[in-house]
């Protein structure tokens, strides 16, 4: 069976490769601390659950300190010179799209057609993490196709992946660390404290105010936690169910659907949702790390207002 663990090893090896390449790269002004950073990340992927939890925690803090004190840098990227790349682009033409489109297409096929395939009574793909395992298989297929098309080696593929990882630098680990913080927040009871603050200081005698508190609270909470899934239980439990459903007789399906979408408006506006907002800015080499959030606010704010109105007018529909 192909499981997520196989891809953890693959990614661990990629980071180990990034570490070694940086260590040997004299053009990187901070090659030792950069290698340390990616080496630690590789160790966390490769050893994973075999590490004692406290050691894993200490390694994470060490990584944060290396990154926080500007220890992560990149060497000069070695790309093909512009004319050569143009020529290769002309020569390969539209065939270049084939491996790129294999990524989504194979992912989709794995997730739909191959998900129930058994060999010798065992599932071929792990069904618990189906999407990621499918994406992983698709990535391997796409690398193979790209190597075949461009007559290069998987090693060159690793070098190119290193170039992109180097360009994104510490932004690669930010979503991961924020997820950890989110889990710590819920363990420490931040959710309860925020719900307590919103529900005990705002008077919800008016139906409109109650709806507005629910939707805006959902968005604000998501901005803080970086994840709508963390906000939903708190706001639904604090306002949605007792006030909107209990007092004003709202249809729970409408309350839940529009509530979750209000949380998503928050996701569009927070650096805490780093994998959607900060990482793409790094991936697209934008100088302003908040550029994607800035582009999203003109959509998120009006949509949040629209959600308040939609919920207000639709909530008593059967």
């Amino acid at each position, binding site marked *: 069976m192909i499981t997520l663990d196989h891809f953890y090893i693959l990614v661990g090896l990629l980071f180990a490769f990034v570490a070694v390449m940086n260590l040997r790269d004299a053009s990187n002004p901070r090659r030792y601390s950069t290698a340390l950073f990616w080496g630690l990340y590789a160790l966390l992927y490769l050893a994973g659950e075999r590490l004692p939890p*406290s050691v894993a925690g200490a390694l994470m803090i060490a990584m944060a300190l290396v990154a926080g004190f500007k220890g992560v840098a990149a060497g000069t990227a070695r790309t093909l010179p512009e004319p050569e790349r143009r020529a290769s682009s002309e020569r390969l033409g539209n065939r270049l799209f084939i491996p790129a489109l*294999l990524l989504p297409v194979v992912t989709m096929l794995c997730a739909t057609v191959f998900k129930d395939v058994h060999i010798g009574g065992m599932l071929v793909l792990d069904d618990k993490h189906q999407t990621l395992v499918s994406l992983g298989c698709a990535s391997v297929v796409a690398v193979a196709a790209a190597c075949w098309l461009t007559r290069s080696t998987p090693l060159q*593929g690793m070098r190119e992946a290193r170039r992109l990882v180097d360009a994104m630098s510490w932004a690669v680990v930010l979503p991961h660390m924020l997820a950890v913080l989110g889990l710590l927040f819920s363990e420490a009871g*931040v959710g309860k404290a925020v719900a307590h603050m919103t529900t005990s200081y705002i008077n919800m005698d008016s139906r409109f105010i109650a709806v507005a508190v629910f939707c805006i609270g959902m968005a604000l909470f998501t901005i803080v936690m970086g994840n709508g899934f963390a906000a939903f239980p708190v706001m639904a439990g604090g306002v949605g169910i007792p006030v909107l459903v209990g007092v004003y007789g709202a249809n729970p399906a409408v309350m839940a659907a529009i509530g979750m979408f209000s949380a998503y408006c928050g996701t569009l506006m927070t650096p805490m949702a780093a994998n959607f907002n900060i990482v793409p800015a790094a991936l*697209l080499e934008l100088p*302003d790390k908040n550029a994607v959030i800035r*582009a999203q606010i003109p959509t998120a704010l009006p949509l949040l207002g*629209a959600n308040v109105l939609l919920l207000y007018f639709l909530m008593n529909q059967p």
Partner: protein
Amino acid sequence: MQSAVNLWPLLGVAVVTLGFLLRANPVLVVAAACGVTGLAAAMPIVALLESLGTAFVKTRNLPLILLLPLAAIGLLERFGLRERAQTAIAKVRSATAGRLLIVYLFARETSAAVGLTSLGGQASMVRPLVAPMAEAAAETQYGSLPDPLRHRIRAMAAATDNVGLFFGEDIFVAFGAIVLMQTILQAEGIAVDPLHMALWGIPTAITAFIIHAWNLRRLDAHIRREMGKA
């Protein structure tokens, strides 16, 4: 009753807010917030490290969606994928950055709505194809773009992928969010048909499309204004 809720852990939230406002390095801010939250919740250092470590190892799946496609995308970029995408879009005379992104928004939102969330993504679609195509569409119209405008188009490409994904996937019945909502409502003794929740998401999904498409048309107007000045 009031004193039953411990408000100290909110200090962690304050650290995050302050850190982002002061534009400190986000990784450092997160580490500091972890420390402060742990202290505020009166966790001993070792217990704090243990819960951080457990959480970190458990969430290793999160960066995979970004990391797995990198080798293939990097390799194709080396041999001219972005240039090819730009040549292809330059042949479509009526293409503008905004119109192209509206088409992508529609495709992304509808495919996510039928459960095909992997037909997109920042690493696998936006960086290699969507952003270069949007830039090229504007360049075909107006010639070489100044950097700030180029960056704005790229940011809008990333934003379009997010908006399409978020407001499409939630009207797909088998999506995690619907399952989560159903579980939580059930715990409170309310039985809800997942199909109803999916259906009641549709008005917001349509509104999201209209508002973002409007913003994309404004992007075209912005490009026209900026390039008209030059």
